[in-house]
């Protein structure tokens, strides 16, 4: 189990109601599940569609993008910074 900083950018920051929080979790997925317990249903509703994390969410761990498919395996270490961001449409 590691204690990391989870940062939010964009729409998910609105739903989280905070810019960041300190959270425990052995993997990225575990840290996100713990954050859901703290942040409530609006956060979860933004993050999920049909029970899965929306495909366009980006997980950026210490500056590196982590494949969404591997967030259940990606181990975290104390002091890691995980950023959660999803682009919105328009270009």
């Amino acid at each position, binding site marked *: 189990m590691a204690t990391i900083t989870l940062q939010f950018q964009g729409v998910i920051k609105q739903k989280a109601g905070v810019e960041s929080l300190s959270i425990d979790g052995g993997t990225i997925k575990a840290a996100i599940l713990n954050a859901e317990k703290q942040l409530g249903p609006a956060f979860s509703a933004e993050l999920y569609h049909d029970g899965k994390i929306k495909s366009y969410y980006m997980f950026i761990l210490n500056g590196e*993008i982590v*494949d969404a498919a591997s967030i259940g395996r990606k181990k975290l270490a104390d002091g890691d910074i995980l950023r959660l961001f999803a682009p919105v449409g328009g*270009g």
Partner: protein
Amino acid sequence: MKIRVNEKPARVPDVYCAADAVARFRPRADIVILNALPLAKPYSEKLSEGDSLVLITRGEKPSPREFEAMLCARHSAGVHDRLKNSVVGIAGAGGIGSHCALCLARMGVGTLVIADFDVVEPSNLNRQIYYADQLGMPKVAALKETLKRANPYVKITALHKRLDEKNTAPLFKKVDVFIEAFDQPSEKTKIVSSFVKARPATPVIMVSGLAGCGPADALRTSALGGKLYVIGDLETGIRQGTGLMSPRVMVAAGMQANLAVRLLLGLQ
């Protein structure tokens, strides 16, 4: 004394002013640039040994050297040389991609690699750099035409194809900066993630949150980590009643182009 006129060596009398050079070398010149600074009539500035004078006639396509001299005059030689040797990739040639490409071509970026699978449609004309007489053309072909009118010497690789997770990094393997200018959130994430995975050392500039006509100064540059940046307010996506409109799209595209230039010049 020896000077250079339109980048060619020339010998002139020791007491000589710019107007004398205009009369001798290009009497119809109406743009006169001395050592990278544009002059105003009557061009009475005295010339010195080693001066560089550029004489251009409006309406005539300038030679590559004359064009470079004009860009140097505006941007300084150091900036111009750096940009001329740079390659920028743009994924998507819609509102963002087309405006961004035009900014970069005008700045004198040497090579642009632009990919888009779409054709110009009437609904694009409210915000994209296309014209009614280009309807139906592949966007990359129409854009190339327009960019060449602004900068005849920019090299353009126009790719009329759909980008995906497999072909993006190979198609953009030579770029110094990669610009994401897609429409759909899932495409943005897929394309950027695949590119960053293959080319982690190359800066990437995404765009997110530029719809509607909210305050332009809500658009900002955010660092997402590593060499990944995003331009926009990060929240205002396309939805019913909040479409994409020209002013905010142009601001966001300009910010992307500006950040690309700053990265290429080592200022960011």
